[in-house]
């Protein structure tokens, strides 16, 4: 279980997280457009950026955790650059340190289309962005940690591999918190809890199944699943509303497009 309370992060003078509070217990999606603070939230939870507020992992304050295996794993690329060696050696090194199963990681990578041979030939930073993402996601899942943070795990995967990864995520026996800006996951993982991320704030949790059928309408609506304030305007997510269906946006980045579009109507967007 991961608990964050009144979490604030400033980067380069800008407040990227503005008092975020949430409990991640079970399977969660943090869904938000680019620049909403999703990755910064994960970086804070993994101890990579300075923060104010409270972060606890399995009931222990983050600042007190040292040398604890099986507690938390992530696919953030920067946590894997421990030594300038070949990616395969890095896989074995990380498996050794984190108590992960290297064979499980290799099997997962094979499923995601990354061969052991390729990993034996290239250093980690020489891999393509997509392969690097698959590499770190496989290692995070093979760790068997009680809490897993996955940053945009579907990025640059083809549809067949996305389906395979969804299966792995469903089978994983532990807490998973995954962030993405892609809305198709709402239909693929309807039983997961969703936290919507906008401009450094979290809204929710809301069951993904409910959001999958929700529509976006401008302004505040009574009985809305969520009312979200942004710099570009306020909008509500309503079940069965007349606005644009959330899943039709494909990516939440398009919300801003809609909010600034001249064709907005009070009743919703078509």
């Amino acid at each position: 279980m991961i608990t964050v309370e009144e979490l604030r992060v400033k980067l380069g003078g800008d407040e990227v997280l503005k008092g975020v509070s949430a409990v991640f217990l079970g399977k969660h999606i943090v869904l938000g457009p680019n620049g909403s603070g999703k990755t910064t939230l994960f970086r804070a939870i993994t101890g990579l950026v300075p923060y104010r507020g409270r972060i606890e992992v399995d009931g222990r304050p983050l600042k007190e955790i040292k040398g604890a295996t099986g507690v938390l794993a992530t696919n953030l690329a920067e946590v894997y650059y421990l030594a300038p060696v070949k990616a395969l050696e890095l896989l074995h090194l990380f498996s050794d340190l984190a108590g992960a199963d290297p064979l499980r990681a290799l099997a997962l990578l094979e499923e995601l289309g990354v061969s052991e041979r390729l990993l034996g030939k290239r250093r980690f930073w020489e891999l393509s962005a997509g392969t690097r993402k698959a590499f770190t996601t496989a290692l995070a899942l093979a760790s068997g940690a009680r809490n897993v943070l996955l940053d945009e795990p579907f990025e640059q995967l083809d549809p067949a591999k996305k389906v395979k990864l969804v299966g792995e995520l469903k089978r994983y026996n532990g807490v998973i918190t995954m962030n993405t800006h892609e809305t198709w996951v709402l239909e693929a993982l309807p039983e997961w809890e969703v936290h919507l991320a906008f401009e450094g704030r979290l809204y929710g949790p809301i069951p993904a199944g409910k959001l999958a059928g929700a529509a976006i309408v401008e302004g505040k609506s009574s009985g809305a699943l969520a009312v979200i304030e942004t710099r570009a305007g306020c909008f509500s997510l309503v079940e069965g509303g007349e606005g644009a269906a959330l899943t039709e946006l494909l990516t939440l980045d398009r919300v801003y497009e809609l909010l600034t579009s001249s064709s907005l109507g009070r009743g919703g967007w078509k």
Partner: protein
Amino acid sequence: MTLYLLYKLKGLVTDRSGLFWGVAFTLFWVLMWAYVFTRVEEPLPPRDILEKMLRVSAALAYSYLGGLSMGSVAVGLAISAFASSSAVAFATRFTRLTPAKYLLEDFLAGVAAVVAYALACVAMVVAATYARFRVLALPENPPLLVAYLSLCGVLLYWLSRAVSLAMLALGKPRLPLLQMVPLILAFLNYATLWVDLAERVYALPLAPLLSLIVSAASGIEPATGGWLVGGWLWEALARGAAPKPPNTLSAPLALATTAAWAAALAALSLALARRVKGVPLEELVPS
């Protein structure tokens, strides 16, 4: 040996830029030293005197050229420490690599890499000297030589660590000049072949150690610099006498100042380590 220590060491000694600057670049200067700068004019001195002169020449070469090689490794150490800062922050929290284990293993790997490159430089100089003069200019006191090289490793490790943490503290992921500080220092020390700094040499990190290396490898008294000026060295050797430097380096004082530099850099590194966090991978330029 743990897997982290093994891979860290392997990464450092197989790093392409490290191999270029620490081996290929050094080899070029070793060959220049052996074939261009080392002139033995006819008539040749007696064999025992020639061997002694070549042993001193080789000692000067692998001490001061080794300094450049070690400086290059230290640059690699700084870049590697900088690039792995986020990974270390995570691993010391959520893997069995505790902060104490990390500090120890990273230190051992760093020092071992510096010594490995320095020994490669010693081997290159010995081989080049043999290839040109058919004289095997082996060090006079190998254990002491290795001990001094290890001290160079300790000093340069902490220097590279202080440099990488300073880069992080400044929040500038790309500061090429700052990361080159160990190599700049090595070049400054190289200049002491011609410049005698007298007692000021103790203020310069590394320079006193390089002089001690020459002494351990050749058996002559250590100088505060100016090895190649004034003729005191070669004239005495040609006469078969023991060279007496104009200013003799005090070994205890040299070791004390080196220890003070290493301690100061270690303290600075540990203080900076408490203030900084890592940088995301995407902000780094691969070396």
